């Protein structure tokens, strides 16, 4: 027999297709018989704003002095039909997140942080809490398919109304809030039995399609005396058509949420496989507004994976008027803090990966209704951290705008951008860096 003991052997090789995560999911599914549910947005690598760079000043672009020359950041949202549009100091808003998904302390902290920076925060599925209203200078009231906690008094108390068609994390999916988070207070606000696994409808109960939506917006305007700006929020599915239809229906503001946008809880398979990346959605939404001659007349808010001032600046340069942050705001409050590593380990995870927001055992006291855990979050201190973070993002945004010669961040434009990958060039509609090539448009076409 041949002796193979001295024969060189290849090292063990794991499959790229059946990687460790995939194998673990197959084993989990086999053991439980039910799909995986988690919070957050898409975790996979996607084309994103990192794949774009600013060109900066040159002979043809005159830079502004960083510490001397003013660079404005304020924004008006909703002046198409509303008699009282929102005037925000910065174009970075807080996205809709519910009391129920988040603790009352977390909601209050979001309001405090946003108000300190002169920007808005947003309610979520389940209605408006007094803590949130009280601490929010500008509060956007979400109008969702479930209509949990929906009432005309709160509608009139709001500064703007956001009709939610869908979310980037799950366009076409309803919500869910598992029983451990349906406490007496949450259940009372939603008219549900305590402890049930709450389902939220994926479609509105009393309108179907853009023609109905137009009438629905008229009703909301009639109830609020045509004062409140009305946003329409769409998950990034078909952003060109959905933006156009929102404009047709009479929206003051369109919110486009890419697949990196977070959710309190939904199926992992939904989060990772439905919808398109934020980068791909922005250009399509802007194109729809331009085709209708409504760009800058109906404002565009972009959300889904916004992390720093560069992301904000790039979204604005592509044609958005403002952005919304959710996941990043929670991190600023204290979510996934490495200081809590020991407790994350007990939950079978690690800081930076914790996404079992639906289970209500968040050691940071944010995505929980447990009174003891919730008390860990000091809304004043957490609100201060959020304000700091928003201030840094704004400074970063101004830095990039000045570098491109802009005296107001709204003046950022696609011509300030180049793409680092062919995919990003095609999605964003800006040239591949070092070329004048925009995929799909031919050489020399801008």
């Amino acid at each position: 027999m041949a002796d193979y003991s001295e024969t060189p052997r290849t090292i063990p090789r794991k499959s790229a297709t059946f990687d460790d995560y995939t194998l673990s999911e197959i084993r989990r599914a086999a053991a439980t018989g039910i799909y995986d549910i988690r919070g957050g947005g898409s975790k996979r690598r996607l084309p994103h704003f990192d794949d774009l760079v600013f060109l900066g000043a040159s002979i043809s672009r005159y830079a502004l002095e960083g510490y001397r020359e003013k660079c404005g950041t304020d924004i008006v949202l909703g002046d198409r039909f509303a008699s009282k549009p929102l005037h925000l100091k910065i174009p970075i808003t807080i996205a809709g997140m519910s009391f129920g998904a988040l603790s009352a302390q977390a909601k209050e902290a979001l309001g405090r942080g946003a108000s300190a920076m002169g920007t808005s925060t947003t309610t979520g599925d389940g209605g408006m809490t007094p803590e949130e209203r009280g601490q929010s200078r500008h509060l956007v009231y979400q109008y969702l398919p479930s209509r949990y906690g929906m009432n005309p008094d709160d509608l009139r108390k709001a500064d703007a109304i956001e009709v939610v068609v869908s979310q980037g994390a799950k366009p076409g999916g309803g919500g869910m809030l598992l029983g451990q988070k349906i406490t007496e207070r949450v259940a009372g606000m939603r008219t549900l039995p305590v402890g049930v696994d709450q389902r939220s409808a994926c479609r509105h109960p009393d309108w179907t399609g853009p023609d109905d939506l137009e009438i629905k917006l008229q009703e909301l305007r009639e109830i609020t005396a045509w004062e409140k700006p009305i946003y329409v929020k769409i998950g990034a599915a078909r952003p060109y058509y959905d933006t156009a239809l929102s404009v047709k229906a009479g929206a003051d503001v369109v919110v486009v949420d890419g697949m990196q946008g977070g959710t309190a809880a939904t199926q992992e398979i939904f989060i990772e496989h439905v919808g398109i990346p934020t980068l791909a959605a922005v250009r399509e939404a802007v194109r729809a507004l331009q085709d209708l001659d409504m760009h800058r007349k109906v404002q565009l808010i972009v959300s889904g994976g916004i992390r720093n001032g560069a992301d904000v600046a790039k979204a604005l340069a592509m044609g958005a008027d403002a952005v919304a942050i959710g996941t990043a705001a929670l991190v600023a409050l204290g979510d996934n803090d490495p200081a809590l590593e020991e407790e994350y380990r007990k939950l079978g995870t690690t800081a930076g990966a914790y996404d079992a927001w639906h289970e209500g055992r968040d050691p940071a006291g944010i995505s929980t209704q447990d009174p003891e855990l919730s008390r860990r979050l000091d809304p004043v201190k957490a609100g201060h951290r959020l304000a700091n973070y928003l201030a840094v993002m704004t400074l970063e945004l101004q830095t990039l705008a000045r570098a491109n010669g802009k005296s107001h961040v709204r003046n950022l434009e696609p011509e300030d951008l180049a793409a680092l990958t062919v995919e990003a060039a095609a999605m964003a509609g800006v040239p591949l860096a070092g070329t004048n090539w925009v995929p799909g448009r031919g050489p020399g076409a801008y």
Partner: protein
Amino acid sequence: MTTTLANTGLDLATMDRRAVNQTLQEAERGDFTVLNPGGAHALACGLKSPIDVTIKGHAGYYCAGMNQEAAVTVEGNAGTGVAENMMSGTVRVTGDASQSAGATGHGGLLVIEGNTSARCGISMKGIDIVVGGSIGHMSAFMGQAGRLVVLGDAGADLGDSIYEARLYVRGKVASLGADCIEKEMQGEHRAELAELLARAGMDAGADEFRRYGSARKLYHFHIDNIGAY
């Protein structure tokens, strides 16, 4: 805030909808008659005081939407979402209503003397609805609280994914939706039904109805229930 005492005519042939609604929304009491509605949408919505409003003719979508305390009567038919998200008060339609009548309503009484289309009482959250005729499919879908009384028949998938809403149907039910079952009529149910029928001005005996509600088997996700979805 204006106060109007006498019966006031509001004619949509000469006033626009905003003016009509603003008058009704700002009134603290009084009787109002809306003339020439012409199927206008969002009429008499967002009312918040105990006023009486009679709409002389057909109304479009979302008539009396989010009503609080007012008593609104549509002398004709009503479009989609009549009395949607009503909080309190009374809304009466003497004719038929389109789909999603009383959708997500939290309180008050909605009376449809004729028939309603699909999704009557969808996501109802405490409203009481009494329908003199029949209702369409998927009615009381995800109904959370409140009572739905139907003197005629109910379409397919009645009470699908229902929570704690209570359903009373006198006629035939085409089919029950997921987790909706027939339940025994006990004394307390006959009593509340009789009271509802009386308030709605309907001539029917409580003993003629059957009761439906949640089996509560889908209140928690469980793999054994997968076939129900």
